[in-house]
């Protein structure tokens, strides 16, 4: 393997090394785990940017001579991998730096992050399934280390996801002889495997209109492990769905699947917004930040147009920012936290806003039907804004750590989100558009790139400009942030330091909109659990009898054998 190529694997390697170091250092330096893993995460980001942008940005397929789990070990480091790595590494680095963790938990967290990066670089569906299962397993250890309860929904969803991926890999292997993204013939991507891939993504990223494991992660007493899981696994869940476009030469096998994904995306956003506006606590509100962005991302990705894919990936970037910002804003107070909450619900000019704006534009440009889905997403956006205002009146959950969370974490995460929003044009030009181009190859006789920067970025300006509208993120958003900061400093100098409005303790204000179906999924689960065989039929079905059949003379065995013999002789 050439050294330049090997350098691309530095990020996961650094995290794995840090995990090992943190684990080994426990006896001698019990507090060393956290700084070591945090430093490794930031170093990984630096190394990734350095090696990718310094190395010509060429896609690399790395294959190992030895198979893993009986599967050929193929890793693909291309623009999409780099983008998704950054979407995972940025919140992971923030959380590893600012969340309180013991050395052992920090080590497991770093190892899980390394596994997540390896999963994102997987070159085949089968390897993605292997990686997802491994990451999910490590995250389960992290969750259970922290708190025994509250990981059932997570484990079920992630297991379903990797099983579906494994099944897809098998179907592709059987129909086309390979499950490697780069080698599957376009004709092999029929509807069934595409649906399975999409279903796996939906389960892994919690993209359902009702409360999924992503929101459940916030109902735990301690937030560290759950929110870290969200930061790692939600982007990982999106990767097979995005890669599906690469397999299908830039499109899904059926338009109906596009429509279904777009509709699901809109419903996911609406569901999250409605839950957010009826949240009983601040944590419950923050729990919906990622599902809200996830729905918008799915809406964009489901459109299947070049702008849709770009918008979807931009939403994933915003989602990464939200996954870092929300946990660091939890249980804290002050203007920074309020600003953070505003950013989470898509107030300009942050990264979340940029992604959602592009998703809306992409929906509008795709056609009227998609436009109406965009309309639904816009309504979700408006409801989320209302929920953010209600947030200020929600009771603060007692912090699970000894000291209140450090505002520096929230400040850093906010800075990242704002910087990504102001520099949206750069993010799109350098990361998102190349990533989208990876999955949308040139088509047509002219071999013109399907995703062209000229159609998304304003020519000769620093603004985003598509057919339906534009947004000068740097020229308007940048000055706006600067003016806001200066204004805040001046105002503080004039008015002096005033206390932030304290949250109203005790009960939460009533929801803005009634939520009649909120508890429906829970009720369904309860109903299923409550299903019992009626007493009068119990005597007909007693599994224990099957065991007792072997205690006396085995007439039952003889009977079963005779019955089967009768069946096979018919």
């Amino acid at each position: 393997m050439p050294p330049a190529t090997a350098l691309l694997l530095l990020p996961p390697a650094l995290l794995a090394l840090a995990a090992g170091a943190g684990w080994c250092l426990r006896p001698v330096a019990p507090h060393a785990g956290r700084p070591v893993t945090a430093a490794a995460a930031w170093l990984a980001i630096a190394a990734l940017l350095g090696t990718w942008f310094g190395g010509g940005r060429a896609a690399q397929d790395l294959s190992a001579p030895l198979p893993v789990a009986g599967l050929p070990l193929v890793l693909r480091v291309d623009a999409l991998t780099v983008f998704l790595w950054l979407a995972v590494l940025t919140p992971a680095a923030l959380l590893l730096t600012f969340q309180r963790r013991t050395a052992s938990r920090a080590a497991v967290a770093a190892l899980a992050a390394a596994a997540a990066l390896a999963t994102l670089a997987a070159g085949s569906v089968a390897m993605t399934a292997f990686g997802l299962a491994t990451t999910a397993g490590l995250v389960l250890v992290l969750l259970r280390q922290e708190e025994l309860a509250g990981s059932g929904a997570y484990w079920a969803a992630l297991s379903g996801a990797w099983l579906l991926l494994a099944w897809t890999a098998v179907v592709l292997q059987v129909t086309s002889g390979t499950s490697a993204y780069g080698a599957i013939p376009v004709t092999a991507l029929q509807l069934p495997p595409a649906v399975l891939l999409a279903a796996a993504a939906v389960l892994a990223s919690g993209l359902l209109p009702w409360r999924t494991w992503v929101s459940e992660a916030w109902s735990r007493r301690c937030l560290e492990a759950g929110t870290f899981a969200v930061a790692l696994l939600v982007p990982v869940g999106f990767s097979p769905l995005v890669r599906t476009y690469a397999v299908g030469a830039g499109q899904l096998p059926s338009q109906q699947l596009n429509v279904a994904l777009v509709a699901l995306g809109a419903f996911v956003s609406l569901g999250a917004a409605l839950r957010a506006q009826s949240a009983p606590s601040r944590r419950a509100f923050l729990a919906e930040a990622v599902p809200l962005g996830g729905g918008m991302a799915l809406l964009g990705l489901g459109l299947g147009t070049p702008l849709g894919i770009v918008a979807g990936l931009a939403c994933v970037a915003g989602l990464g920012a939200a996954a870092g910002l929300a946990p660091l804003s939890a249980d804290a107070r002050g203007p920074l936290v309020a600003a953070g909450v505003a950013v989470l619900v898509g107030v300009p000019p942050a990264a979340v806003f940029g992604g959602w704006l592009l998703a809306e534009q992409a929906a509008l440009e795709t056609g009227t039907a998609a436009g109406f889905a965009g309309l639904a997403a816009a309504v979700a956006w408006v409801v989320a804004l209302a929920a953010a205002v209600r947030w200020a009146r929600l009771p603060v959950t007692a912090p699970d750590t000894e000291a209140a969370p450090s505002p520096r974490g929230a400040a850093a995460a906010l800075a990242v989100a704002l910087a990504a929003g102001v520099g949206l044009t750069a993010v799109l030009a350098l990361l998102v558009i190349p990533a989208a181009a990876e999955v949308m190859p040139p088509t047509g006789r002219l071999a013109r790139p399907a995703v062209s920067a000229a159609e998304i970025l304003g020519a000769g300006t620093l603004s985003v400009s598509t057919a339906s509208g534009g947004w000068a993120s740097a020229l308007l958003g940048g000055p706006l942030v600067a003016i806001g900061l200066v204004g805040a400093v001046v105002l503080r100098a004039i008015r002096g330091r005033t206390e932030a409005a304290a949250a109203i303790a005790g009960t939460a204000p009533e929801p803005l909109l009634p939520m009649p179906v909120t508890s429906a999924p829970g009720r369904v689960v309860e109903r299923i659990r409550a299903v019992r065989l009626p007493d009068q039929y119990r005597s007909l079905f007693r599994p224990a009898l099957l065991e007792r059949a072997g205690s006396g003379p085995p007439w039952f065995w003889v009977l079963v054998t005779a019955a089967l013999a009768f069946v096979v002789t018919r």
Partner: protein
Amino acid sequence: MLPLHLLALLVYPGLGLVLAVGALAEIGAALALTGDGFGAAVQAPATWLRQALRRPVDLVPPLLAMLAATQLAAPLSPVPPVERNLIVAAVAALAAAWLAGASAWTAGQARTTLLAHVCWILALLAPAVVSESLRPQALGAVVVPAALPLKIAAGLLAVLCLPALLRLGEPECARLPLWLPICGLLVSLFLPPAGDDALGLLGFLVATLVTAAAAIALALLVGRGALYPRLLAPLAIAVLAMAVVTSVLT
């Protein structure tokens, strides 16, 4: 490019125009709604300056209003038309509207406001979905006969939403920065764009102030009646239905 955008944010059609139009509209609103007489009404803008800007967070509504104002189809705006966006304006204006009234938050009032916000966004976006554009000036210029009924109905709904949107029933709401972005956006979307000259600018300002006056008049008309908010939802549904029909026809 940056100086022009700074000019747009801080002077025209940004902060400067936002404060000017806001001050005029606030005086009008105070005269019409509180009936304290001209002397007290003139004090309204100063009261906003004194009471609505205490904490750094209070700066957010004017900042967002500035941003929303830059997106309007205002004549002679330094922001190039291709960089303007209805969604940027709408989201910034709605966020500003929420924050402006945040201090006087009650669940009942918030419900009405949310209903108005949802109806307003539907009114703004339904024509945009049909004409597949988010550029305010492009939407304002749409005169396709088949799309006109929808445009008129959406415009009517948008105007009806104004009293709730601007919280005209709440004296303590710091709405001064909201008048231009909200009323100006309606003018940008539902009236043909004015020319890039002094006359056009005058026309735009007059239209914006007339829209503001209409909002005040509506507020006077509906008062605190419970019927008003209930009217918005059916109208919004009707607008949606018209949008669907229009999209099928065109």
